């Protein structure tokens, strides 16, 4: 056990990681020694201007990329030493991605989209699969939309399909990259309400955004600048999305 991670509840621990991209002869230092620790059950927002290394940090935490130096522990596993196949397995089992552009398979219906991570995981029999898909659709309020294709769904519904997909393998952490960026404010608030509900149920959520209003739904905001953690802020009274929604104009579909 690493000494830096004294509390057993530590889910993400990043120690002094760097990442340099080379575009032709120019070196871009995307991360220059970032340190970060996130405990299980936290709701953390990462903010920063473009070029601050946000995306790189997200890619590394999401196991899509590996750091050049430094250490990254995900649930006490040293991810920086894993190969491509092992990283794919971590992505499959421990991480749920939610993207700004939803990234759904346009030809597949809701169920097939949500099922996607299960196709690539060894465990889970067919019967078990159906339960998992149903449970995660239920928790995002999409029961009744199983057979719809993404083109037949609204933006908010598409993002909820994406969240259901992120949830289906019961990951340790949900990574949301600008999840409200393509949505109007009411729909965005609905999505935040889902994240808050999932967080209350015990999910660790890591949210990247450049909107302070969105970031203030989290318990903690981390500010990134020039590839380093620049400042941290504890939010004692995060915005409650459900309360916000009450004040906003009425919406069509209710959240449970």
């Amino acid at each position, binding site marked *: 056990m690493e000494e830096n991670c004294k509390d057993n509840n530590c889910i993400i621990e990043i120690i002094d990681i760097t990442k340099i991209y080379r575009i032709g002869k120019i070196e871009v230092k995307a991360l220059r020694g970032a340190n970060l620790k996130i405990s299980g059950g936290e709701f953390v927002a990462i903010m920063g201007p473009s070029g601050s290394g946000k995306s790189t940090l997200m*890619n590394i935490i*999401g196991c*899509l*990329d590996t750091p050049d130096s430094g250490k990254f522990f995900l649930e006490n596993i040293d991810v920086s030493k894993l190969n*491509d*196949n092992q990283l*794919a*397995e971590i*992505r*499959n*089992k421990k991480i749920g*991605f939610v*993207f700004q552009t939803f*990234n*759904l*398979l346009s*030809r*597949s219906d809701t169920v097939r989209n949500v099922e*996607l*991570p299960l*196709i*690539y*995981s060894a465990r889970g029999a067919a019967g078990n699969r159906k339960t998992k898909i149903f449970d995660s659709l239920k928790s995002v309020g999409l029961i009744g939309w199983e057979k719809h294709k993404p083109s037949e769904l609204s933006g908010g519904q598409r993002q909820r399909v994406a969240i259901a*997909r992120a949830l289906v*393998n019961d990951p340790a952490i949900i990574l949301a990259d600008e999840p409200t960026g393509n949505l109007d404010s009411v729909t965005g608030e609905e999505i935040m309400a889902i994240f808050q509900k999932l967080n209350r149920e015990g999910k660790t959520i890591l949210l990247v955004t450049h909107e302070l209003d969105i970031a203030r739904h989290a318990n903690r905001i981390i500010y990134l600048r020039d590839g380093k953690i620049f400042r941290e802020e504890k939010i004692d009274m995060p915005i409650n999305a459900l309360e916000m929604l009450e004040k906003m104009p009425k919406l069509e579909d209710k959240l449970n």
Partner: protein
Amino acid sequence: MRRLFESIKIAFQSLVSNKLRAFLTMLGIIIGVGAVVAMMSIGTGAQESVINSVQDIGSNLIIVTPGNRQEQQQGFKQMLEDDRDKEALKVEDVKMIEKEAKLIKGAAPAVLSSSIITYLNKNTRASVYASSEKAEYIYNFEIEQGQFYTASDVQNSANVAVIGRTVINKLFGKIDPIGKIIKVDGKNFTVIGIIKSKGTDQFGNDQDNSISMPITTAQHKLYGIDYINMIIAQSTSENNMNQASNEVERILRRAHNLRTDEKNDFTVQNQTQLLDIVGTITNIFTITISSIAGISLLVGGIGIMNIMLVSVTERTREIGIRKAVGAKNKDILFQFLVESVVLSITGGILGILFAVAVSIILNRFTILKPTISAFPIILAITFSTMVGLFFGIYPAMRAARLNPIAALRYE
């Protein structure tokens, strides 16, 4: 297993959503496989019908024709010189063979020609096959009604004939021809028998449009010749056909007084050799067509590779998504490989159906009788699978190697 099933499902979804494109891509394979299967079936069918008709003539037959076949093939000049060999075979040769050859059960001479047959005011042209009484069993002349001419008919140059069904239909209609007098090139003949119907041969010739008579009658009364066109001899067993052929050759060389440095003025062939020739011809035919079809398969494969590369580029984002949720490189590789194999096998199956349709049509409307066997179908499926694998592996590897971050950002 479940993953294979998933991949096949995904592959079919992607084919169905691009029906026209998938069909055009498969066209090369469809044509290639269709051509291979159809041509092999036609080849097999032709071979079978030739073999059948060769065996129809009779069994264990050795055929002697005048002139040296091998030399005739050497050139025009040689051919002119050999023309005098046209008259090389005589009825005496047949008698000599019958008398001396130990491996020959019987032999019959033949004069082959064609003549105008007249009955009352009707006439028709029919093939003439004049022989001895032995032709009845050597040449499989089955007599349906009446009788075949006898040895004494042959000896006396009797004006008697047996005729085939087509001749009867044209000249007699419903009238019983037996005992009637017909004219062959103006000479009177009595019909004494009806030859049992043999149908058409593999070249579409009507074998029933024929007439047979004693060879002596044909030689002396009809055509005024002393030579014969062919000797048909039957060996004692199918196992000694080649020895029997050699024996016939030796006897004829002696009968013709040929010196050791002189070449044969006749050609001896046996049924085994004929069948071998048929086999060789159909094999050449099959190989030629198959290699053309193989090229079509190659072109089809290139088409598949092309469309798979397009598909990988189009679906870069999908690949990124799949990788983000945990697909390994080999999962992506497998998915695209399955897709190209599904494409090529579907093409192969459509090609086989196409070939079956062509065979059925040919069977119905032409004299070709294609026989579809399991071999070309298995071959076609194997080949199209291999084409799919071979031309799919590169696009699939490109897909598998995509960087997930770049793929997710791809517009």
